[in-house]
């Protein structure tokens, strides 16, 4: 099997619109600014001695404050230690604003990946439903409104 019209150059175009690429870049920049602001706000609220970094005691205070726990329960302390250790990527004993910003971005990209997977599954189901409707319509089925495989049972 060969295809006519296919023995041409791999790509040709006279259009040079870059509008979608520009808007993507702008959107990405806006998102980065929001993340920076979030990191800055978190830093200000947790950095009680104003030295531009968060040490373990400041972090524990913030966790206690968020969980409404003023006592140093061992489980709460253990969880806080684990989170602090994960955020302190250069292991200098403090969390810098850069480390905080990096963690926020990583959390966001993880959420994005999960959303993309859900969206892809939905997309597959939608396409499958459309294809079934098209096939059944060709065979004169009166019920082309469902993607259920029950509609394929003769």
């Amino acid at each position, binding site marked *: 099997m060969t*295809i006519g019209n296919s023995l041409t150059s791999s790509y040709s175009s006279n259009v040079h619109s870059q509008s979608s690429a520009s808007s993507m870049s702008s959107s990405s920049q806006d998102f980065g600014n929001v993340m920076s602001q979030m990191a800055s706000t978190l830093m200000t609220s947790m950095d009680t001695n104003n030295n531009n970094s968060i040490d373990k005691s400041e972090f524990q205070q913030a966790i206690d404050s968020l969980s409404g726990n003023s006592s140093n329960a061992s489980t709460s302390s253990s969880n806080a230690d684990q989170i602090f250790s994960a955020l302190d990527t250069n292991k200098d004993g403090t969390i810098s604003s850069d480390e905080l910003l990096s963690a926020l971005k990583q959390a966001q990209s993880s959420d994005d990946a999960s959303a993309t997977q859900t969206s892809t599954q939905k997309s*597959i189901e939608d*396409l499958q439903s459309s294809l079934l409707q098209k096939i059944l319509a060709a065979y004169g089925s009166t019920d082309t409104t469902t993607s259920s495989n029950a509609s394929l049972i003769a």
Partner: protein
Amino acid sequence: MYIAHFSAFTTPCELQFDVATKEEGDRILASLLTDVKYLQKQYSFFDVTSEIYAINHRQSDTFTLSKELSVILALALFYARLTQGAFDIALAGTLKQAQKAISLHEYQAISAKLTPFANFTALNLEGERLYFSNPYTQIDLGGIVKEYAVDQTIMRLQTMGISSALVNFGGDIAAYGMCHDEPWCIGIQDPKKPDVNVATVMLRDASLCTSGHSKRYTAIEEHRFSHIISPHSEQRYAQMSIIAPTTVDAGVWSTALLVNPTLSLPKHMSKAFVL
């Protein structure tokens, strides 16, 4: 026009679609290839991580399917009934096991043993539950999943707003819109002379599939076994090309008519070429 060539489903594939920039084409191609590779892997007969492999190597006679596979299987069983078993995923899957034989004698012995189980009536699909009447029946979606992938790809392109496209996965072709203000012009290759077209077809918003015995086969002791597994030893036609609204339809019926030429083709389809 953006044009890409790649391999999938063990055949050469081609995509052509209209986009404004090469970058946009690259982005769309990457997205489409992800889906094609997923389908190829998920429904492969041989890939040990595929859902089909898990079904064929099941530990019990009942299997819970993914939602997508349950619909594909329902579609395959729908066609098995329509074609009176000429298109049969259980026939293909069960007898495919004989192709691992190293001698003609062994091939014939395995085939004889498995033939009673090589029939779609051994399967019972209820929603997303698949029941087997015996442990020997296996299924192979090779005759439908490539066509399904072509239809999914063309529909993905349509939902992306692409106005003109052609998808060709190893001779299973779908085309919509126009190519340079004309319908897509498809050449049907002479199986004995690859450089010669025996016919040309103008295709627009439709699919064309060609099935044949000559291109893909297994050879055992110089005896050729076509990739189209048939209970009939006689091969009246060497090649069959069908035009239909969907690639799944065209692919299934081109195979079915090759296996059983006495079948009546549904009215919404047409024979493009018979050899």
